[in-house]
């Protein structure tokens, strides 16, 4: 059975406290965690080292989350197929549709409790919740 320690999660969010909150939860659950401040930086990081799962915010400077996801899905494998969990303050149906259309695999609305985050990340990584 796969373990959390073998899974690398890339958090893409411009808010430092949000990144720290997610990192705190995921590292305690045993995941390896990296961070990017926006979509541009995330693509650069992924080209250097792919991740097992992406946690993606929507409103970010330089490249918003949906533009990032569309760019991601146009990359060569295996980067194009990395699962993406979008976590946004945008709770409306328009943003959920836009996320799905851009290539998100799951959508959560902030705030997300740490145990809920770990549960979703584990399931999306094929680990027991």
């Amino acid at each position: 059975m796969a373990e959390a320690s073998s899974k690398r999660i890339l958090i893409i969010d411009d808010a430092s406290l949000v990144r720290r909150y997610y990192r705190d939860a995921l590292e305690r659950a045993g995941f390896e965690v990296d961070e990017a401040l926006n979509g541009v930086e995330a693509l650069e990081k992924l080209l250097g080292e792919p991740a097992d799962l992406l946690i993606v915010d929507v409103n970010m400077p330089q490249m918003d989350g949906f533009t990032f996801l569309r760019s991601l899905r146009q990359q060569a494998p295996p980067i194009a197929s990395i699962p993406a969990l979008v976590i946004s303050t945008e709770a409306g149906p328009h943003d959920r549709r836009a996320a799905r259309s851009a290539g998100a695999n799951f959508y959560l609305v902030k705030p997300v409790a740490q145990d809920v985050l770990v549960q979703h990340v584990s399931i999306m990584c094929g680990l027991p919740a």
Partner: protein
Amino acid sequence: MPLVRKPSPQTPAAAAPPALGEGTREQRWAAVRAAAERPDGLALLADALSRESDPRVREAIFTGLARLATPESAAVVVPYLRSDDANLRTGAVDALRAMPQACRAHLPALLTDGDADVRLLSCELARGLPDEEANRLLCDLLERETERNVCAAAIEVLAEIGRPEAVPSLLRCGARFAGDPFIAFSLRVATERIAAPARDWR
């Protein structure tokens, strides 16, 4: 022999100012760049932004408006904070962030806007103000704000630029959202950072 004026040569079509809303993406992009240099550039860019759908051309329009950096150009950008399109929202925030002085006059109204998403995005814009002014505006917001995500955005900024005077507002906000784990986590980090020694207040 009477002087006969030579007919003036036809102006080549290529020399005419390109229409902002017409042509290929590259032509529209070039037209935007040219419009930004014109005295009537603000009106041209505002009109183009309302009709443009290509992200690269939009980015050029936002850049042109940010370069103008006047309260009027900021006023053109502000409504796009309400857009359903994340690309437009990002462009608007980036443009307003690039003209902090021009944005300054709009911030009190933006931070009290009826739309929580606008208030949330505007917290980040307060970062461009002098620390004292940003602290005052964000503390005022924390005292009255009912949306936790807006408070979280204000705490995020205060964690970076917060002054000791902000701590009571932060703690009162925390009391209103008691039981919210992210607010509690953010407040702990923010107050620790504010209390850290050797902060150099601007």
